[in-house]
């Protein structure tokens, strides 16, 4: 078993419980909404068509997009609620459609018989239509169950807690054991819940109430297990939330912040792998207390500045903007930069740009890209960012091919010569591992990306909170470029757990501090 896996087993009760609570509560609410809706529209073909059409449209929205969209729609709420609402929406279509089909499938002669014997509409529904449609309706619930349990693995980016934290965390830190572990557990949970729901189907078929009770008991047990975590937390002090974005460095730094706060006596909860946009909304809304972002990121994404600026000016402007516009406090710089940079293998650079290192610039690449066929790969967001547009226009870059890929795959592609240039992150451990060279941004188009420690106004007001984190940002920052790169390498290349690397990193900071003091 990998060290990372053993490490992550400690989170199992939390993640599994969160997953069960989320999927079950969404299913229950979905059921309570869809069956009456299905009953109401089943007698009106046009309405039924409309309702099913709307549900089908919701279903076609990619689940990740629906989840992330729920955050602004719910006024910036993150965590359980956006995930809950999105999953309810997902559960509606199968249950609604099957309710309509099930009710319509009841033999009209039986409805006439019921009516002819003197049943009112309600009695007819309760005694004839629903019991006869039950197997089909429960079939819909089973479909919804598998769908919801599966989709619940995607709630990580909105700050939800589920087995998806294993999957996302594993993908982001190249820990495939954790990813497979999360997938297998989610699949097992889906099968267990599906079989429990199936007991109701059997109960209806065999007219055996004991089976239904067994199913209900099983589901209640899962719900209870899911509720255990949140309920037990009610009786412990309100935790502080530290959040991390979905990549290695953030996973490490989240652990670093958590450790600092914990040793200062705070109870800390992590929201790992939150999408950056979501993270910022959560910080603004005081739903998370602190996170780490990058000056250049805020500069281009939030401030929408086209022109870069000198590093210290940019820092000051970002600080000011965050405080004035969002009420978010920048506690200081961590001491390293994680910038975008164009990276190549030296052999390829020599062949394409020339043997002189001084020739390895973006200008030279642009020149060559207009003559030769050059390909580039970037992560899933870079080519939509302002930085890319600026880079392309200012240098007149002409790439033959532009690939978008997950960072892990992107580094692999340049290593294996499948692509000439990649958009790398300067603090990434894989630059060193693959011996990549960074091309000089000779026109200074890209801004600087100093890592900064951000906290919500509410968090800063808590006594001792800022003090606990101050060692990280004192004197221009405690984590140098080299230290961060090494820490990232430890996780991405050596396969150590982010937590262990974080503890080592903190230790080295403490040691250095002591030697300085001496």
């Amino acid at each position, binding site marked *: 078993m990998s060290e990372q896996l053993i490490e992550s087993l400690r989170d199992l009760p939390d993640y599994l419980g969160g997953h069960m609570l989320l999927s079950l509560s969404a299913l229950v609410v979905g059921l309570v909404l869809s069956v009456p809706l299905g009953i109401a529209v089943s007698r009106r073909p046009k309405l039924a068509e409309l309702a099913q059409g709307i549900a089908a449209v919701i279903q076609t929205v990619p689940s990740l997009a629906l989840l992330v969209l729920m955050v602004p729609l719910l006024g910036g709420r993150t965590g359980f609620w956006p995930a809950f609402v999105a999953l309810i929406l997902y559960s509606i279509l199968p249950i609604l459609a099957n309710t309509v089909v099930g009710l319509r499938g009841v*033999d009209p002669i039986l409805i006439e*018989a019921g009516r*002819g014997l003197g049943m009112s509409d309600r009695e007819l529904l309760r005694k004839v239509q629903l019991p*006869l449609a039950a197997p089909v309706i429960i079939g819909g619930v089973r479909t919804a169950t598998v769908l919801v349990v599966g989709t619940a693995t995607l709630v990580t980016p909105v700050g939800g807690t589920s087995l998806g934290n294993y999957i996302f965390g594993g993908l982001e830190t190249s820990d495939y054991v954790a990813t497979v572990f999360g997938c297998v557990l989610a699949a097992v949970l889906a099968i267990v819940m599906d079989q429990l729901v199936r007991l109701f189907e059997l109960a209806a078929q065999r*007219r055996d109430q004991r089976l239904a009770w067994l199913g209900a008991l099983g589901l209640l047990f899962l719900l209870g297990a899911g509720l255990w975590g949140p309920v037990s937390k009610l009786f412990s002090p309100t935790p502080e939330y530290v959040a991390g974005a979905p990549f290695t460095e953030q996973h490490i730094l989240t652990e670093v912040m958590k450790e600092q706060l914990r040793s200062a006596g705070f109870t800390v909860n992590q929201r790992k792998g939150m999408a950056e946009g979501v993270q910022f909304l959560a910080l603004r809304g005081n739903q998370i207390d602190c996170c780490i972002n990058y000056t250049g990121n805020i500069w281009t994404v939030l401030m929408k500045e086209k022109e870069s600026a000198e590093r210290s000016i940019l820092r000051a402007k970002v600080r000011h903007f965050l405080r004035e516009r969002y009420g978010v406090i920048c506690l200081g710089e961590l001491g390293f930069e994680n910038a975008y940079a164009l990276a190549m293998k030296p052999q390829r650079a020599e062949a394409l740009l020339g043997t002189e290192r001084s020739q390895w610039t973006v200008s030279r690449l642009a020149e060559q890209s207009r003559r030769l066929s050059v390909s580039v790969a970037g992560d899933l967001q870079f080519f939509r960012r302002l930085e890319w547009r600026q880079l392309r226009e200012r240098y007149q870059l002409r790439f033959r091919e532009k690939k978008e890929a997950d960072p892990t795959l992107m580094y692999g592609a340049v290593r294996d010569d499948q692509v000439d240039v990649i958009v790398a992150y300067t603090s990434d451990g894989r630059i060193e591992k693959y011996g990549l060279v960074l091309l000089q941004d000779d026109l200074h188009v890209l801004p600087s990306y100093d890592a900064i420690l951000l906290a919500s106004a509410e968090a800063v007001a808590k006594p001792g909170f800022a003090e606990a984190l101050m060692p990280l940002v004192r004197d221009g920052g405690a984590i140098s470029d080299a230290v961060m790169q090494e820490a990232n390498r430890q996780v991405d290349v050596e396969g150590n757990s982010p937590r262990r690397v974080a503890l080592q990193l903190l230790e080295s900071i403490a040691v250095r501090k002591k030697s300085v003091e001496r």
Partner: protein
Amino acid sequence: MIVLKQVSKTYDTGHVAVCNVSLEVPAGKMLVLLGGSGCGKTTTLKMINRLVEPTSGRIEVDGRDVLSVDPVQLRRGIGYVLQGSALFPHMSVAENISVVPRLLDWPVERIEKRIDELLRLVHLPPEEFRSRMPRQLSGGQQQRVGFARALAAGPRVMLLDEPFGALDPVTRDELRSEFLQLRRQLGLTAVMVTHDITEALLSADLIAVMNAGRLLQLGTPHELLANPSDDFVGSLMSSPKRQADQLESLVAGGPKGGSS
């Protein structure tokens, strides 16, 4: 007693299903509505228990205007038997029979007693049949349960929509004669729909012949056979006789057997 006075049914589409039908079924008698498919006989039947609402006219059951009664209450007091029994497949025989008594909130002991009583009445031993599911019964047994269900709350009036239609000929004859006996024994007023002329002639006290939504002739089987009001009724009524003659000649080795 059932009385229909100038009853018509016109659907929203403009289709006239029943036009100006008046008839009377004296208490304890059985009327058969006879005609081909689409003649309006089933619509006429369903207007009596308001499964279909008449467009105009007046319908009385035992002196009460059916339109003045809550349809749900009205139907609980009228037995209703459908073609192919239409038993609820998710309910046992006992549960099917007790549908109306349960709707009427009878006490459990009374319901249980009544189930056994009815099963015996339709010649199904209770201990054997009570807990069976409809799919475990033959067609004839299903329709016996259908009768028991219709009789459960002791109605004075029965409506039957082709009750023997889905049965094989032998079972049909057997069940029909049992039903006729039962009906007389219980003194039920009944209206039955059929397109089977022989069945109508053998079952009815009164026959109402319908065509294209109109009542062509109302009378006893004898009256209809002896004095058909027009050619249509005449040829209809004589068809069993014609068939019987053909059968007879077959037995005698008649026309089909050759001229020797």
